[in-house]
């Protein structure tokens, strides 16, 4: 079990489903919604494997829209 646990909060209305965060994730946490779309018709991103998130915020860094907010907590504290 990882010593850190991260969590990504997605601003689903701002997301444009560009997939850049998905390919930047080292632990394969993120995925685009296969069917759901937001008000603008984009398949927004969601956490497919939330347990795997290490809070590295690669996704937030490469997101052109700034729609991701990343949290990280050490579990041994």
């Amino acid at each position: 079990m990882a010593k850190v646990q991260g969590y990504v909060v997605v601003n689903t209305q701002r997301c444009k489903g560009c997939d850049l965060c998905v390919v930047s994730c080292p632990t394969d946490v993120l995925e685009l919604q296969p069917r759901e779309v937001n008000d603008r018709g984009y398949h927004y991103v969601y956490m497919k494997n939330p347990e795997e998130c290490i809070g590295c915020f690669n996704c937030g860094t490469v997101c052109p829209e700034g729609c991701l907010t990343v949290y990280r907590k050490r579990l041994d504290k």
Partner: protein
Amino acid sequence: MDISSIVSPENLVYAKPEIMNDNHMHYCPGCSHGVVHKIIAEVIKELDLQEKTIGIAPVGCAVFAYKYLDIDWQEAAHGRAPALATAVKRLNPDKMVFTYQGDGDLAAIGTAETIHAANRGENIAIVFINNGIYGMTGGQMAPTTLSKMVTSTSPDGRDVQMMGNPLKILDLLALLDGVCLATRVSVHTAAAVKKARRMVKQAFENAMAGKGTSIVEVVSTCNSGWKMTPADANNWMVENMFPVFPIGDLKNI
């Protein structure tokens, strides 16, 4: 997993920069412009320059840059951003003045303004987005378009015999005595974004310190104009753009 214990302010590690507002950006999904806007917002916040920054918006895709960052902006005529920045900086020497330009703006119609502003050593920062194409008007060939690159006005690829070679304007600018920083970065990975942020920060510091003109060229993608997915466009950029526009400092004094 207890989400509420993780999602709390003391665990926050990344959020949209405060200077970037909530207006919905008009850029295509995956456009590099958004990342560079975020970098500028973060650097301005870090240097505490929000009240002292004047941005010069270009003509091109970034024409609406003033809608997305909560700083003072002035819109320039096509290609004239360095000339306008010269005036703004000379009239407001205590302000941090930067231009934000694409390759059609800086390297085509604004070549003269860019070169002469840099040659005068105006104390401005220039953020130059180079995606090798005119993105806004539908992907026409730009001066920076690569040899054999297919665009809407070069459907058989750019023929350098007929249309000239890709213009490496940063190499030209680096030769000028007025330039203190000429560097090429990219924003396709998290590590590259961090490097780009360092260089933009240095450029803004140079502008405040009066060291001369700083140019940060961001080798970018235009996935709509290149007709690729954003991830494929990043890979294509690494394979094809980087050999012609290599990443790194050309001049840093």
